[in-house]
């Protein structure tokens, strides 16, 4: 196995023995070996001068890194509820039968392993899988049969039908962002003419708020970073679009990469940052080549590098870092940890990234869509940008629409659009439930379809999943609970244990063994997760359960063995003999259920 050590050593050298590149080194080492054997971790640790335990800890954190050998073809089925509604479970069973392999196992000859993975961001063209990290869309029985044959024949991926790997943009409604042509450099030029302060002032006037979900003011973030002490500022683009049901950043990266990179450069102009990092989720690895090509073109055009557009002292360049299957890294401080080559554990805040971010340097972390939007502000001015949308939610919002509708895809709407309007546009006939904002979002019932997409009403990072009358809201919530349990980083007690417990309760109900007391326990866990969790993953994990319990309670109650929990026998009555024998009848000799926690 000296090969493994050599491959590991080459990856380390490619990254100049830089410990902050540990995750990239692990990904590349695995690319060369297929998994990460123990001696490869030992070698990496030696060369980086890190404790081996730390390297092992990082390797163990990410879903796409494997300590044990996996199949030469590693097939992962996207397991979001939308993929399931499109038949992913049945297709996975079929493939497993054809390849004679059990889910989660490696086939006897080592040619294939089949498993599930969290939403791969292809809800508009699922069911989707990842084959050795590359996205395959629109799976059906014919494709599964063909894939089984290709795997059996050992056909290299490069010789598989190209259309399997084709990812459509599915842009269905274009607003200012998706509708207008963009000349690379034009926004940058416009912002530079205004000067750094003038440009920040435009962003402030635009009222732009973060499109990643939290809705924090972009101008406030940029100003704080601009004013923070320290010369080595950093701009990070959060392209770890992991929220189940979201894929609008995928489309922006595929079709509007120039705008995204120009937005990062605009952030650098505002803050004085010299280094840019784009954190690309592992599931979107197929976009890496395209993104690197766009970066090269921009460098050649003088839009990146030293003296951008000839401006002395305006030096900025962008690197791309790959994720490896960890939803929590979408949380900005976990993302920074991951960028530094560590486990993706959210940090204690304060301090915030604008003062202590990447490697302790002042850092702006923005969502892909937020950065793309800043090009509009540069070109049209802040006031024009703010003319669209609502007073508190200016501009447009991209929605990733999937589920029970005729036209799934990406839609650009001015903020303030009603859910009913969106449902009509996407061809949803019989919508019963809409999950807005992904697994961590809000469950919207029919009587609320008049509500509006806006930070002040129904906020969203972009996911919009439609469920019609055939669907079961309980199963939707259960799918999301499984997702959170899988994705919890495990740092804090309430999220690590609470999401696993919640999963157990939902499964108990699903198996028809639920009692009313379980609903009380579920509600108690919901509260603990909300109140005590370290980060947004834990505090939003119970959202789908809380919402569906309130709005679709019969979906839970029909699964209970009895509505009023009764133990199999009366415990207090069973103590009667003992009371008679001891001559006691005081309160302490009785069981009082009300004292139960």
């Amino acid at each position, binding site marked *: 196995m000296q090969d493994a050590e050599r491959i590991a050593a080459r990856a380390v050298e490619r990254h100049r023995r830089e410990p902050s590149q540990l995750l990239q080194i692990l990904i590349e080492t695995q690319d060369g070996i297929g998994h990460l054997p123990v001696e490869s971790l030992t070698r990496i640790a030696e060369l980086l001068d890190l404790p081996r335990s730390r390297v092992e800890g990082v*390797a163990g*954190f990410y879903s796409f890194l494997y300590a044990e050998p996996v199949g030469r073809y590693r097939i992962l089925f996207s397991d979001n509820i939308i993929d399931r509604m499109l038949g992913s479970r049945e297709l996975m069973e079929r493939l497993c039968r054809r390849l004679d392999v059990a889910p989660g196992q490696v086939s006897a000859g080592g040619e294939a392993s089949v498993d599930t993975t969290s939403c791969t961001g292809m809800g508009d063209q699922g069911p989707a899988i990842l084959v050795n990290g590359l996205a395959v869309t629109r799976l059906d029985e014919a494709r599964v049969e063909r894939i089984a044959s290709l795997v059996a024949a050992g056909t290299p991926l490069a010789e598989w039908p190209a259309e399997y790997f084709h990812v459509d943009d599915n842009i269905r409604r274009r607003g200012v962002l998706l509708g207008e042509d963009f000349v690379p450099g034009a926004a940058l030029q416009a912002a530079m003419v205004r000067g750094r302060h003038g440009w920040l002032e435009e962003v402030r006037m635009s009222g732009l708020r973060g499109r990643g979900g939290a809705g924090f003011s972009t101008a406030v973030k940029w100003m704080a970073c601009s004013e923070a002490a320290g010369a080595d500022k950093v701009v990070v683009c959060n392209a770890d679009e992991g929220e189940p049901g979201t894929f609008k950043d995928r489309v922006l990266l595929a079709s509007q990469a120039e705008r995204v990179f120009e937005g990062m450069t605009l952030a650098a102009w505002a803050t004085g940052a010299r280094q840019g990092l784009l954190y690309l989720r592992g599931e979107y690895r197929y976009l890496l080549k395209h993104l690197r090509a766009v970066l090269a073109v921009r460098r050649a055009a003088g839009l990146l590098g030293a003296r951008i557009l000839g401006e002395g002292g305006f030096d900025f360049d962008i690197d791309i870092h790959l994720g490896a299957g960890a939803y929590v890294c979408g949380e900005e401080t976990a993302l920074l940890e991951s960028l530094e080559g560590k486990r993706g554990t959210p940090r*204690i805040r304060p301090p915030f990234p604008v003062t202590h971010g990447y490697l302790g340097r002042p850092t702006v972390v923005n969502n892909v869509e937020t950065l793309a939007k800043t090009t509009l502000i540069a070109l049209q001015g802040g006031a024009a940008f703010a003319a669209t949308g609502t007073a508190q939610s200016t501009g447009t919002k991209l929605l990733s629409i999937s589920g029970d509708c005729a036209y799934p895809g990406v839609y650009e709407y001015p903020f303030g659009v009603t859910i009913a309007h969106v449902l009509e546009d996407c061809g949803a006939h019989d919508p019963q439930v809409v999950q807005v904002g992904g697994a961590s979002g809000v469950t919207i019932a029919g009587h609320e379809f008049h509500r509006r997409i806006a930070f002040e009403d129904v906020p969203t990072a972009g996911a919009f999943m439609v469920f019609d009358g055939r669907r079961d809201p309980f199963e939707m919530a259960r799918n999301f609970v499984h997702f959170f*349990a899988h994705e919890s980083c495990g740092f*804090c007690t*309430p999220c690590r244990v609470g*999401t696993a417990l919640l999963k157990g309760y939902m499964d108990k109900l699903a198996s028809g063994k639920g009692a009313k007391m379980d609903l009380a326990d579920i509600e108690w866990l919901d509260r*603990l997760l909300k*109140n005590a969790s370290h980060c947004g993953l834990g505090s939003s994990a119970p959202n789908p359960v809380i919402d569906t319990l309130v709005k679709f309670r019969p979906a839970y109650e029909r699964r209970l063995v009895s509505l009023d929990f009764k133990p199999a026998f009366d415990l207090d009555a069973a103590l009667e003999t003992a009371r008679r024998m001891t001559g006691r009848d005081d309160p302490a000799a009785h069981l009082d259920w009300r004292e139960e926690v």
Partner: protein
Amino acid sequence: MGGKFLFDGQPVPFEDGQTILQAARAAGHYIPHLCWHPDFPPHGSCKLCIVKVGGRHVSSCALPARDGMEVESDTPEINGERRALLQMLFVEGNHFCPSCEKSGNCQLQALAYELDMSSARFAHFYPDRPVDASHPDVLLDFNRCIFCELCVRASRDVDHKGVFALTDRGIRKHLVVNAESGRLADTDFAVGDRAADICPVGVILRKRVGFAVPIGERKYDEASISTVAMEKGE
């Protein structure tokens, strides 16, 4: 600068940079904790030290005190949540207090008494966590690990050895040691390390000294954990 905040209705002075927990302790108020240790920076993972400030839950070990804050700590609501967090820690591991060498010296057990935890409430996970008895002087019983990372931090930041680390994530997260074999004997861990006597529960145990002090006469058998913490500063 500094200032004053209200802790369960009583004024508590603080100096700049002090967290709520530090200032409260200095003023004689105990806040339950497991992953916090006076010799280390705050970690914020166990969440036992949650308090309510202005209606919001925060980790008192990590949040700097601010003038005029109103902090709720020893209330039925917060203690109920702390009890549930303890129950979570008990069910995720394998904790058999009657046969544990750490009984009476264990902070998890002592806090369970302190907060009147009378049952585990939730279903046990019964994880499979083999012990590591390879080291000549120290036994590792991972069954009791609560992931406070004090051994990780002590070994990394004080001993400069990096003997311990966490791997995997979520409920599968677990402690590993710094050796390709995965055995403590193959690390440079020594019984005199700071990491050797930092464990608040019964994971890291010295060999050949077990039960030297009988159960019933140990630290938290004699006095409650809040008393020990406030009187001895532990």
